[in-house]
C-alpha cells in the first residue's frame, strides 16, 4: 500500500478512502457561499488576465470631450476627469489589486513560513529573536510602516509587492510557529532525525506539508488585507504610479468631483468590496473545510 504524506488527516466515509485534501474539497464544495466566492475570484482573474480583450476601451486613452460623462450605453460606468472609460480602468484595476494580493502574500508566506519554522523548530535564541520580531511587527499597524516604506522606495507596483510582503508576515509566522511546536515532537519527525535526516529535510519534506493548510488559509485571508492596503496606499498617492489604473487611485481621483459626478467614486469602490468580500468568504470557507478540529 502506498501512503502519501498528505494522508495524515485521512478519514474514511461513505464507502471510499479519501485523503485530507479530497475530504476538504468535498466539504468546501458543499459550502455554497465559498463556492460562489471562488467563482467570483476566478472571474476576476479572467478579467485581470484578459483585460486587453475584455476592456471596451484603452484605459489610459484621454478623450476630453467625454470628460466626467455619466454612465450611458457607450460608457457603462461613465468617464473620469480626463475622459477615460471608467469600466476599462476598473477592469485593468483588477490586475493591480490581484497581483498585489498574490505576490505580496507569496512573499509574506515565504518569510512567515521560514521565520515560524525557525522559531518553532530551533527554539531557544532563534525563537526569542523571531518572537520578538513577530511581537514588534504586530504591535504597530502595518499600513503605517507600509506608508513609510513606500515613501522611501517611491511608488510603483514592484515596490508595493515588496513592502506589503515584507511587513505582513508576522501573523503567518506566529501560526506556523505554533504548528511546528506541536509537530516537532511527533514520532515521524523524531524517526526522520534518528534516520539521519538533516534539518532542512525535516523542514521541507515533513513540516512543510503539514503546514500547508495553515498557509492556504493565511494566504487567502491575507490577500484581501493586502488589496485593502494597496487601495489605501494608492488612495494616498503612495501606491501605483499614474496613469496606471488602480481602484484606490481612481477613488482618490474622484474625490474632487463628488459634488458633480457621484458615479465616479461608486464603481471602483464596488470593485474593491466585491473582491475583498470574495476572498474573505472563501477564506472563511477554507478555514472551515481545512481545520480538522471543526470537522464533524
Amino acid at each position, binding site marked *: 500500500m502506498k501512503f502519501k504524506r498528505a494522508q495524515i488527516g485521512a478519514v474514511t466515509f461513505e464507502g471510499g478512502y479519501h485523503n485530507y485534501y479530497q475530504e476538504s474539497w468535498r466539504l468546501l464544495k458543499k459550502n455554497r457561499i465559498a463556492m460562489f466566492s471562488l467563482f467570483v475570484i476566478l472571474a476576476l482573474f479572467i478579467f485581470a488576465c484578459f483585460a486587453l480583450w475584455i476592456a471596451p476601451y484603452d484605459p489610459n486613452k484621454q478623450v476630453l470631450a467625454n470628460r466626467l460623462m455619466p454612465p450611458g450605453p457607450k460608457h457603462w460606468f461613465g468617464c473620469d476627469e480626463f475622459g477615460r472609460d471608467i469600466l476599462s480602468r476598473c477592469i485593468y484595476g483588477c490586475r493591480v489589486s490581484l497581483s498585489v494580493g498574490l505576490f505580496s502574500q507569496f512573499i509574506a508566506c515565504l518569510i512567515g513560513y521560514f521565520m515560524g519554522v525557525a522559531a518553532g523548530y530551533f527554539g531557544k535564541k532563534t525563537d526569542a529573536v523571531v518572537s520578538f520580531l513577530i511581537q514588534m511587527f504586530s504591535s504597530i499597524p502595518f499600513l503605517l510602516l507600509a506608508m513609510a516604506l513606500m*515613501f522611501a522606495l517611491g511608488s510603483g507596483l514592484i515596490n508595493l509587492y515588496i513592502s506589503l510582503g515584507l511587513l505582513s508576515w508576522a501573523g503567518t509566522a506566529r501560526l506556523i510557529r505554533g504548528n511546528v511546536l506541536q509537530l516537532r515532537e511527533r514520532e515521524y519527525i523524531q524517526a526522520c532525525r534518528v534516520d539521519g535526516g538533516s534539518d532542512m529535510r525535516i523542514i521541507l519534506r515533513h513540516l512543510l506539508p503539514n503546514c500547508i493548510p495553515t498557509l492556504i488559509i493565511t494566504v487567502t485571508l491575507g490577500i484581501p488585507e493586502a488589496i485593502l492596503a494597496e487601495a489605501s496606499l494608492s488612495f*494616498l498617492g503612495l501606491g501605483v504610479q499614474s496613469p496606471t489604473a488602480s481602484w484606490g487611485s481612481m477613488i482618490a481621483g474622484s474625490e474632487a468631483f463628488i459634488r458633480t459626478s457621484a458615479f465616479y467614486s461608486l464603481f471602483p*469602490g464596488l470593485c474593491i468590496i466585491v473582491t475583498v468580500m470574495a476572498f474573505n468568504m472563501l477564506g472563511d470557507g477554507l478555514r472551515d473545510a481545512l481545520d480538522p478540529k471543526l470537522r464533524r
Partner: protein
Amino acid sequence: MKKYLIKRVLLAIGIIFALSCVTFVILNVIPGDPVALMLGDNADAATVKAVRANLGMDKPLPQQYLSWVLNLLTGDLGISFFQKKPVLTLLTTAFQYTVRLATISYLVAVVLGIGIGIFAAVNRGKIADHALMALAITGISAPSFWVAILLQIYVGLQFKVFPVSGLAGPISYILPCIALGTRYAAGIARITRTSMLEILNQDFIRTAEAKGLSPLRTVFIHALRNAMLPILTVIGTNIGELLTGSMLTETVFNIPGIGKLLIDSITKRDLPIVQGCVIYIAVVCVTIYLVVDILYAVIDPHIRLEGN
C-alpha cells in the same frame, strides 16, 4: 504578576527601540534629497550643503541615528522643514483631533458591534441574523476612505447639517465617526456572534433558562460575561489599526489630525515630521498594547502564568 509586569514593560521598551531603528533605516535610504527639495530648484549646491550641515545630515548615518534617538529620549523630535515649528508640538496638537475621532468612533463601534452580535446570535438562522452578518462582512470588506466619500456624497451633500470638510462643532464628527467606525463595528459584531453562539449552546445556559431566568438576564448576565474574552481580544488588537484607519478618514474629511499631518508631510517630503509621526504612533500603539496586555493579565490568570 510583578514578574510578568516587569517582563512586559521591558519588552515594550525593546520594541520601541527596535522600531526606532527600523523607522530610521527605512526613512534614511530615501533616494530623493529632502534638503534640495525644500530649497527648490534655484538653490545652489553650497546652500544645500550648508543647510544639510545645519540639520546634521552630513554626518554618517549611525551618528545621525544616535543623535536622533538621544533627542527622542528628551522629547525633541526636531524641527519641521517647511512649517519651521517643533515636530512634537505639531504632533501633539494634531493628535488631539485623532484621539477624539478614534475614541468616539470606537466607542460607538464597540457598543453597536456587541449589540448586533448578540442580536444575531440570539436570532441564529433567522433572516435578521443572515442580513446582519451579510452587512457585517460587507462592512469589513469596504475601505473606510470609500465609505467616507459615499457618506459625503449621499449624506453630507444631501443634508446640509453635516459638513463634508473640516471641523465646525461636534456635529462635524458624526460622518467621520460613522466612516471610521463601520469596519470595527462589523468585526466586533462577527466575533461577538461566534463567541456568544459557543456559550449559548452550553449546559449552564440551559440551566439558567430552565430555572426560569428571564431571557434578558440569561443573555446579558450569564452568556455575555463568559463570551467576553475573545471579544475583548479583538477590541484590544484593533486599536492600533484604528489609528491608521483614522488617518484615511482624516484625509477625506480634511480633519487636521495626525493622519492628515503625516500625509501632507509625505507629499512635501518633510522628513522630520514623517519620521516623528511614525515613531510617535509607534510609541502610542506599543503603549496601548502594553496596557491592554496588562489588563488581560488582570482578567485572565492563565496569561500571566504562561510567561513564567
